């Protein structure tokens, strides 16, 4: 589904160039549930941003279902992301001024979908995530777990094939975290490819494959135990 070849990302700082991703080569198959782990500053979120096509300033090759995203213009990448990718954030990033229903509807409003169809899709999502009774509430009236549920509903409303989650349970109580992870598993079973970033081993256990990052290098991949990281090569 996705092929990353020699992906690199750096920032210019006063001290020189600071690398956050180094020669990342990664292949993601349809239906996988991947967990990206690593200490703070390892490049997990940066890799997620690259996968989400939110970042533009990386080098390397990014193939999405045989389409060369690295050769696309910004607008084309945006279109590709809009059709295929959903993102769940650690801080939910719900819009305070919009109700639950309006927050869920937001990604649809940026697509050319007739209003009636949109209403139907939002109603389905509310039903599916058991949020019908809360559809007219504002985010500030919900608990953290409920807010993340809305965040997930918003991320999957347009039925993306790839769901990216950046520390989705980072701000939640363990019982709420468990519910969310169960939901991810359910979505994965229904065919959605999921890539999550987490520090939690328990959450990682829901995934089918774990990738470890350190200092921007990919250092291990449970799908490829024989994997030798670029960092190790460089160190040798």
């Amino acid at each position, binding site marked *: 589904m996705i092929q990353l070849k020699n992906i690199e990302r750096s920032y210019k700082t006063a001290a020189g160039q600071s690398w956050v991703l180094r020669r990342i080569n990664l292949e993601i198959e349809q239906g996988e549930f991947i967990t990206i782990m690593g200490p703070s500053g390892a490049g997990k979120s940066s890799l997620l*941003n690259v996968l*989400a096509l*939110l*970042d533009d300033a990386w080098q390397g090759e990014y193939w999405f279902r045989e389409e060369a995203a690295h050769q696309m213009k910004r*607008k084309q990448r*945006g279109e590709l*992301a*809009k059709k295929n990718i959903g*993102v769940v*954030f*650690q*801080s939910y*990033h719900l*819009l*305070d*001024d919009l109700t639950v229903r309006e927050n869920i509807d*937001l*990604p649809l409003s*940026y*697509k050319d979908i007739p209003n009636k169809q949109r209403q139907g899709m939002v109603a389905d999502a509310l039903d599916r995530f058991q949020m019908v009774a809360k559809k007219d509430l504002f985010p*500030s009236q919900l608990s953290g777990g409920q807010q993340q549920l809305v965040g997930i509903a*918003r991320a999957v409303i*347009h039925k993306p094939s790839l769901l990216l989650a950046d520390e989705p349970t980072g701000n939640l109580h363990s019982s709420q975290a468990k519910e969310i992870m169960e939901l991810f598993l359910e979505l994965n079973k229904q065919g959605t490819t999921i890539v999550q970033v987490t520090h939690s081993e328990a959450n990682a256990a829901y995934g089918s494959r774990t990738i470890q990052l350190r200092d921007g290098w990919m250092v291990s991949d449970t799908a490829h135990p024989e994997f030798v990281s670029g960092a190790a090569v460089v160190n040798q």
Partner: protein
Amino acid sequence: MTRLAQHLRYALRQIKKSLAFSALVIGTLALGLGATAAMFTIVDRVMLRPLPYEKADQLVTIHETGRRGQLNGSPFLDIQQWIERSHTLDEIAFYSPDNHGAFLNGKTASIQVAAPGISANLFPTLGVQPVMGRDFSTSANRMGVLPDDKNSIILSDVVWRNIYGGDRNILGRTISLNGEPYVVIGVMPRGFTFPFGGAKPVVWRAAVLGKNDAVRKKHVSPWYAAIGRLKANATVASAQTELQGIQSEVAKLYTDPYEREDVSTIQVQSYADSLLGTDLKKLLAILLGAAALLWLIACVNVTNLLLARSTNREREVALCAALGAGRGRLALQFFTEGLVLSAIAAFFGLAIARITVTFFSHALVTRFNIHTDLTPNLSVVLALSGLTLLTAVISSLLPATAAARASIQPLLNQQSSQAGTAKSKHRTRSLLVVTEIALSLTLLVGCSLLLRTIYQLRHVPLGFRTDHVIVANMTVPSYKFTGRDIQTELYQPLLERVQHLPGVKSAALMTEVPLGKTFSMVFTLMPQGNTAAAVRQRNLSAQFRAVTPEMQQVFRFRMRAGRFFNEHDTAASQAVVVVNSAFVKAFLGDDEDPAKILGHQMLSYAKDRPAIVIGVLDDQHQVSVAEQSQPEIEICIPQLTPTSSLYQSAEGIKMDIAVRAQRNPATLILELRRVMQEVSPELAAGNFSTMDQIVEDSYGSQQFAARILEVFAGCALLLCIAGIYGLLSYLVAQRTKELGVRIALGAERKNIMWLVFRQAAWMLLAGLGIGLTLAYFSSVLLRGFLFGVQPQDPWIMASVSILLIVSGLAACALPARRAAKVDPMVALRYE
């Protein structure tokens, strides 16, 4: 005190810390305060100026009125009746207004002065006495002056100091006025003048009553302007009621029924009010209101800016509160900062006011007769100080309240404002911008209506050409030509020399150029009988001008019938006059052929020298551009001789010279002045202007108001754009995270831009809605000043709305672009 000093120090540090922000606030407030201070300076000089008389509010003018409106003066016998019968007036004095000036003759030069003749009780009525010497001696009837004082004169302080060098031995000295000897008997106090507001220095002659004052007869008995002092318990209204009753009796004393109709009623008016027309007072009030609107817009704008800054300073405020600063102290800090900013702005505002008033000084002289220095004085500075304090209160009220009400803990924990507070501040700021838009629209509509009026006035066909014409107003030193023919000895040589100046195509003399408003003479007919024609002609009141034949070449007007004067019309030829179409209409009736009046005998140049009508001028806007042509009759200057009954009034008081020339006016004026000085030194003091300028000046109130409102409305639009821009920039900055989320969820550049434009559109539409309602009602106030446009003109309302929409959307273009460029990764990192 220490605390206040600390607040001040902190406020100054804040200003220094964010210089650009402070400059923006100071600049905005300086505009509002400057505009208001400028208008207040004008109002102070025009409406609030204290009159240099004792209890000036008790002084009233008294005018007889009747069929032909208000008369400029009354015969002595009528004034005598009023004072004898009135119980509401303590005193009534009178004077013969000297509108045309006189010449105070020195050894080498003559100086133009005003020299009204006054009754003996005028100065006591005004509550003023000479500081040196004595007043005129009172005759038995307490108003007249004893004949002994016929050649006595009292000097104003200005004349005494500037012309006679403050000579302490001036009393008893003989001076020459218009060639006649007068003995100085007194000097008035410094600052005193009467009549009030004249440009020329004043000397006072005695109004010694003569035998003509013993009759009531038009063109025979001298007419005087009357001024009275109300008794302590009387009011203008009670005096009006009483004098109206008296006047009914006085009118019966007129034997001529037509003259009786002209004096049937009376008008008593406060002297201060009489110095300024109702229209001008209304206009000044409107303009002061407009300045106040601009000031309010500036305050609203600054409130918005300070609110934005207070949001950025929430953590600082929370920290102060956590360290023990009370709510009152926090609010006081914000108020001190507002006060310091307002005070600095007031300083610049004063400079703006000075520049603005200087910029409009020409209009102030022509429109309001203000000849004094226009530097903002103590009362303006005091008013400005009060306004500055109010500005500080208004602009810092909301930020101070917000700071005082802020909860400490969430701000310290989250390092940003709470959602609810931010939302309420955002709503407040939006409402402020909506208010700004509404107020700006009101000002813009007013300005546009007046600009449209000026446009309409400029496109009125005047009936004569104004280009390349230079005009000089002259006060004629006729005393020098006593016993001689002024026509042959002054006017002819002057005209010949001017006509021979390089570049001069033609030059003409006339008592007053069209639209000149310098020397108006009125001609009335007195036909006998009660036929329809006789009644119509008795009501005819025509402009009267004495002109030379060259006038047609200078102004290039057209004739409807007959011919204009030419070189064959001399003192020896048949006396002739020319009238205009409006005169023919009034004289013959509406449907008559203008040519029918040709050959008609109209007036007499002298006894046994009747004049006939030889031509009919096409109508011209000779009195006012906004008014239809008035009936006019013109006589030919070369036909006047010293024996003519019209000689003194037509040739001996005022004369304009109009010159058509293909030359730079500045250099020609220098040469004209030189020629005039050589012909007679007194003529060099004349005023010079171009005919185009005279036409511009004739627009008067509208022109003045339009120019002031242009400046105010321009500033308002600028502040409005700045307000919209400032708010949207702030919102974009505040909503960076939200915009990042939207982009991450698939929003495109156009979606984000639309979001910002939609915000602006909402504010614009709300502002336009309120503004149009305000403008709809407030523009009615301008009705009396409009020409060719209705107060609620839909095109103007629509154009101004479009201008504001376009400006508003342009103002949000930059914030919208900035919003569309938000990097979602950076935005989301805010978490």
